């Protein structure tokens, strides 16, 4: 059974600082997705990582995928308050089923 774990689950950081958050998964997959959720809102897609070594960047966020280690990282550079949100990673089952399994989400608070 595919399990997805995010670490940490809560993060409070100051503006201007850098930090990396982690997403581990338990079985083979080469498709991983990052989503963002603002309070009271639905999820919106941030990154789609489709192969080992994939790296995507958007503004102050950079995501990477290491399929051998079953690990994705989301790196935050020079955080700003607008990045405060909950971040989810999700992994596809490999082997036919098109359902995504989500981690529990990491709530990020960026303080001025």
């Amino acid at each position, binding site marked *: 059974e595919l399990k997805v774990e995010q670490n940490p689950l809560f993060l409070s950081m100051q503006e201007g600082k850098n930090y990396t958050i982690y997403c581990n998964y338990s079985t083979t997959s080469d*498709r991983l*997705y990052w*989503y963002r959720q603002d309070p009271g*809102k*639905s*999820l*919106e*897609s941030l990154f*789609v990582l*489709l192969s080992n070594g994939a790296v995507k960047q958007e503004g102050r966020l950079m995501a990477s995928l290491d399929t051998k280690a079953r690990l994705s990282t989301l790196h935050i550079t020079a955080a700003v308050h607008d990045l405060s949100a909950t971040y*989810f990673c*999700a992994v*596809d089952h490999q082997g036919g*089923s*098109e*359902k*995504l*399994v*989500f*981690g*529990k*989400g990491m709530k990020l608070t960026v303080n001025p």
Partner: protein
Amino acid sequence: DVKVTQSSRYLVKRTGEKVFLECVQDMDHENMFWYRQDPGLGLRLIYFSYDVKMKEKGDIPEGYSVSREKKERFSLILESASTNQTSMYLCASRQGWEKLFFGSGTQLSVL
């Protein structure tokens, strides 16, 4: 622009009522999903559908059923609502292995 529309943003129902949550997508996607989201538990898959009239159980299907009579519409049914089904319900769709597109969610309260 891509759209997944859920019929209600907020819903209040009584224990024992039959509840229908509707979801419509305009992207011609084959795959549609129902998740529920609870604090501390993340998103959990209830059911998904990979084609019209086809469905598959997710991780927590008990107490729910689904219907997909047309490609664009996926309904979640609570046969007899209970208080432990109070939650945020999120519908999503995708084509193949592409990213999920989510609706805005339905906050259901069962009293």
